[in-house]
């Protein structure tokens, strides 16, 4: 699904990613853990197409395409979804309009019929119920005045509507209480299947109790320094990154 080889990138002349190799097969959920400043969010934004980063080497293949050659909207159309660590507020853009425009853009790109307002409302209400989201969140401007938890749920709602092939969750667990965490994890688990992969970026083991990964990678200093099964996450939670930082 996603194959990263030798990826290096810099921001304003500073090398942030120093050679990332990662193979995420279809149907698997991988976690990326690591201390602050390791390059986790840079990797997430870079994969989604943010232009602030200069790729200086390496390749990224996604679903058979050269991902780095695509515009952000083309990456989304190809099935990549980034759940933002800090979802952006859009004053004046109603959440319902935002969600419908985004969903229909994806549907159009896939050659599917666009949903009209009624069809969309039926679908979105159903998905919101399963995420325990109040319906008035449709009427407000997207993410404006939403609590931290509401913003994250709104991200998961978008993911549930768009049904991506690859979801990248950038610290989706930060700022969530335990109930919200469970709801978010269930939202992702509901999408799990042979054609869905996820890259879960997190600081903490907590989310991984509900969203059990197939592999865990540890990113330190712009490199993946160790990979392992779910037990690696528990070891990190118990011991911290110290033993790996020494090795890096």
């Amino acid at each position, binding site marked *: 699904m996603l194959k990263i080889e030798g990826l290096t990138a810099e921001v304003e002349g500073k090398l942030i990613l120093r050679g990332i190799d990662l193979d995420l097969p279809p149907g698997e959920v991988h976690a990326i853990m690591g201390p602050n400043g390791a390059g986790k969010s840079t990797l997430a934004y870079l994969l*989604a197409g943010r232009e602030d980063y200069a790729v200086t080497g390496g390749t990224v293949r996604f679903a058979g395409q050269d991902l780095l050659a695509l515009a952000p*909207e083309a990456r989304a159309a190809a099935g990549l979804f*980034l759940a*933002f660590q800090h979802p952006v507020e859009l004053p004046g*853009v109603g959440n319902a309009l935002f969600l419908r*425009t985004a969903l229909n853009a*994806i549907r159009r*790109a896939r050659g599917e019929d666009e949903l009209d307002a009624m069809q969309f409302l039926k679908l979105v209400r159903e998905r919101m119920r399963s995420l325990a989201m109040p319906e008035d969140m449709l009427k407000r401007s997207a993410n404006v005045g939403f609590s931290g938890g509401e913003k994250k749920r709104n991200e998961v709602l978008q993911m549930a509507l768009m049904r991506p092939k690859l979801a990248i969750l950038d610290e989706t667990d930060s700022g969530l209480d335990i109930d919200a965490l469970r709801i978010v994890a269930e939202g992702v688990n509901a999408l799990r299947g042979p054609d869905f992969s996820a890259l879960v970026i997190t600081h903490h083991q907590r989310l991984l109790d509900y969203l059990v990964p197939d592999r865990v990678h540890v990113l330190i200093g712009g490199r993946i320094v160790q990979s392992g099964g779910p037990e690696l996450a528990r070891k990190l939670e118990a011991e911290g990154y110290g033993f790996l930082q020494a090795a890096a």
Partner: protein
Amino acid sequence: MSKLTPGGAEALLRRYEGLSSRLPGARLPWLASLRAAAAAAFRAQGLPSRRAEAWRYTDLRPIAEVEFAEPLLSVTAALPLPAQRLPRRAIFVDGRFREGLSELGDDAVALGSLAADLPAAEGRLGRLARPEEHPLAALNTALFEDGLTVTVPAGIDAGGLELSHFVLAAERPLACHPRHLIRLEAGARLLLLESAQGDVATRYLHNPVFEIEIAEGASLVHVRLSQEGEAGFQLGTIYARIEAGGTYDNFTLNAGGRLVRNEIHAVLAGPEAACHMNGAQLLRDGQHADTTTVLDHAAPDCRSRQTYKTVLSGRSRGVFQGRIHVHQLAQRTDGYQMNQALLLSPEAEIDSKPQLEIYADDVKCSHGATVGALDADQLFYLRARGIPEPAARTMLIDAFLQDVVDTIAEGPARDAVATAIADWWRGQA
């Protein structure tokens, strides 16, 4: 006053000299002397140059260079009439009322062509306009041929009226100076939806003057869609006087024309009167649009609100000048003015000049201005959701305009503005 003196301004006056005996109402002594005084005022002032403080940011040389002719009397071309949105509609072509195309209704509301009954306008025409201070109001007074007169009797809600002005294709540049007189008697109400459109290839000057009288407790909602043709100039001047407890709501959309000025002089003349002046300017290529407001708080306990938003692309230029004058006796004035611009191109320019002159001591009056580009984080967020960049930009610009469009409470007028904005987007694509 500094003036431009090229051929165009002289030609505008020569027209007066040639036409004065044939202009409507030429035999009415009061009107003939009004016109003569206005022509003299224009001769003395000329078309204002940028050395005049009120015209510092708007250069009228492109207008001064043109030799305008009067519109032809017989117009046969078909009008691109849009669907009628409100129960009444008055249609003007090249500055003249077209009765056959209009739908005025048949009730207590007095509505019709100014030229058709000029004697009735005595004492009313010229009551508010200040030709001696304003060259374009002077030019309009000297040369107007027609206009709309509306009188809504006391206590009557006249509902909605459209005032649609068209300039048709012409071989020679033409100038028209309609004069519109709107009067709402005590407690009367009216929604006036005004639109101005013109043939895209024709150079013309549309120079309307409004004199608007709002009596005690009356309420006028005046929504203006300025969608002039690409080569058209509009220099519009509104004089409004609002008596005690009356309300004047003006919303102006500038989304067309090569050079457009929307100038409003409003006087809050009685206690607890209110004035809302809002608008949006959508500019591209080399367009120039200027919103200039002069608001007099001349009585206590009045309230005013102004919000103007400008979107600029290409090499366009936008101007906002807003002066609020709070007279000494205007205690407990509540005034607010906001001007925001969104620059979509590095070549675009916005000039903003708020001016508060406060002579009363118990006053709440503030203003603000912002200038910015589209937010890169917002744009990326939308694109990361699969929304192509042009559509994402459109969404964010619409969002920028949303709150000012939402100040229009009347559904049909708000829809008309939204449609005009959508039309502008189609032209942009």
